[in-house]
């Protein structure tokens, strides 16, 4: 007999996150480092954390939720696995119990993450079906997209302020900070570059492609045009996901 009820936890997580103290607050902080790779936004900001509870013996119970029952299980797995890792490492936590709720692959993902089985092993023999590849490549692909999208967020304001293509093509990260300040967008771009193994010191070039190569002035207009398309894609996708989550959970 198939169980059709679900476990919806309605409402926004913002109040719970703000009110938390002690170990619970540290778990919320840890969850802010877990991001949806597709949207390049953390799971707390996205309201994907349904609940956090830390028991007296330090076991952290975290439930995650997604905008739809059919959100891609590969991304879901990455988020649950990442949450498991960072919550386990939070000070005061003796054990992490992270579960995904209201999703068609909840059982396979939760069991697999708890057993640290990897994506392929977790999906094997389940109703969800067989998976043929681990997710490292997927994560890298989306970090590369985040680099492109982030390039748009950082460079477009500079050019609106009057920077020429020649100046942008030759600019270092340090010069960009001097011109526009250390914005969140710039900090995030540097983080994504580090994750991809691309140098991101002050003396390194501001505009690079996802392999770390500099982009010459001739190729710059098309590169920036594409960077903008990536950013528009992320924005559009995020807005649809937020809308779906709001409809599903009343946030």
């Amino acid at each position, binding site marked *: 007999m*198939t169980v*059709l009820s679900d476990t919806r936890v309605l409402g926004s997580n913002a109040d719970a996150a703000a009110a938390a103290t002690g170990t619970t607050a540290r778990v919320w902080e840890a969850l802010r480092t877990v991001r949806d790779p597709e949207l390049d936004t953390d799971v707390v900001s996205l309201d994907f954390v349904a609940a956090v509870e830390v028991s007296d013996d330090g076991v952290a119970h975290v439930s995650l939720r997604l905008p739809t029952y059919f959100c*891609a299980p590969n991304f879901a797995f990455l988020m649950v696995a990442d949450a498991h890792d960072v919550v386990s490492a939070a000070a005061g936590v003796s054990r992490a119990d992270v579960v995904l709720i209201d999703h068609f692959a909840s059982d396979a993902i939760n069991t697999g993450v708890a057993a640290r089985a990897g994506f392929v092993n977790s999906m094997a023999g389940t109703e969800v079906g*067989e998976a043929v590849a681990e997710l490292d490549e*997927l994560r890298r692909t989306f970090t590369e997209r985040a680099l492109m999208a982030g390039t748009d967020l950082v460079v477009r304001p500079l050019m609106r302020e009057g920077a020429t293509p020649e100046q942008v093509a030759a600019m270092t990260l340090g010069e960009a900070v001097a011109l526009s300040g250390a914005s969140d967008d710039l900090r995030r771009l540097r983080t994504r570059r580090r994750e991809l193994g691309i140098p991101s010191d002050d003396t390194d070039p501001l505009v690079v492609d996802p392999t770390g190569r500099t982009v010459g002035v001739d190729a710059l207009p098309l590169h920036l045009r594409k960077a903008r398309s990536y950013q*528009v894609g992320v924005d*559009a996708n995020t807005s649809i996901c937020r809308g779906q989550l709001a409809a599903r959970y009343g946030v």
Partner: protein
Amino acid sequence: MYEKNGEKYFVVDSHMHYWDASPENWVAGAEQYAKGWIECFHAYQSLGPAETHWSIEHFQKYSEADVMKDLFEDGHVDVAIAQPTYLKEWYTEGFNTTERNGQLLRKYPEKFRLNTRFDPRDGEAGMREFERNVEEWKPLGAKLYTAEWNGDSRGFKLSDPECYKFLERAQELGIRNIHIHKGPTIWPLDKDAFDVSDVDKAATTFQGLNFVVEHVGLPRIEDFCFMATQEPNVYAGLSVVLGGLMHARPRFFAKVMGELLFWVGEDKMTFGSDYAIWEPRWQVEGLVDWDYPEGHDYDDYPRLGVEGKKKILGLNAAKLYDIPVPEELQLKGDSPAAQDDAELVNREVAQA
């Protein structure tokens, strides 16, 4: 037909459905998927204006009378292209089959065009079924779901050799337009089901077919754009783009439109309401009224004028489907409405 400020717009809704997702049609043992699917669709509807929201019961199964009213009486639609979605793993009689849509065509042949479908994983039996459907319904198009489950398989690619056999046969049988779902709400397992590189390969190989990418590859609009700009026979199907963004997120909608107009162009964009997820009326009226919001974010995007809106709302699809357009609704001094690439494809088909 929709008239505003003295301009008349011929409207082709090139992507609509007539589904039955009521509990009576759920496959025993797969109820959670059948239920999850239609609830997921229903959540999409929430992105449209509040006064157009339906109850889940109505949304699960609506009547033929609802379709006729929502599309043709209220929705300004002249001709609708019914697209099938089988999902027989979850829905006993299918979610929205060729036969079910065919009820509409039989009764209102001037109002509808019917598309069929195939699934290359169904092999010879699938090929025979496809041929029977083409024989019976004489469709000009087919709708494919590359991420649909089928037995143990969780998806296929247009570039798979088995799929090429079907595309070859489709072309021989007079199919011209392949609509491919590349968009949200389908569940890639570990293959990236939104990846459009398979469309790129197929479009290069099958120059006699047009490929309409429904939902423009959302959430990977950029990959779709970079591909479509290089392939003359690839089109942007605007279903979900209008319904999901125009009302809920107008600024993001404007950017997506800007990207599509820049990379793909107004000659290769087609309106689709995705009914019954969203009713066409507010989408048609909204697009006719639409312009970029104030602000420098939109400065370098191509503008969309009345002619462009006429193409997107109906004339481009009319061209793809040989739908006759009354003289007064054609562009002034320019009867072939859609672009040269489409004409070229049609000519090549005619000569083949």
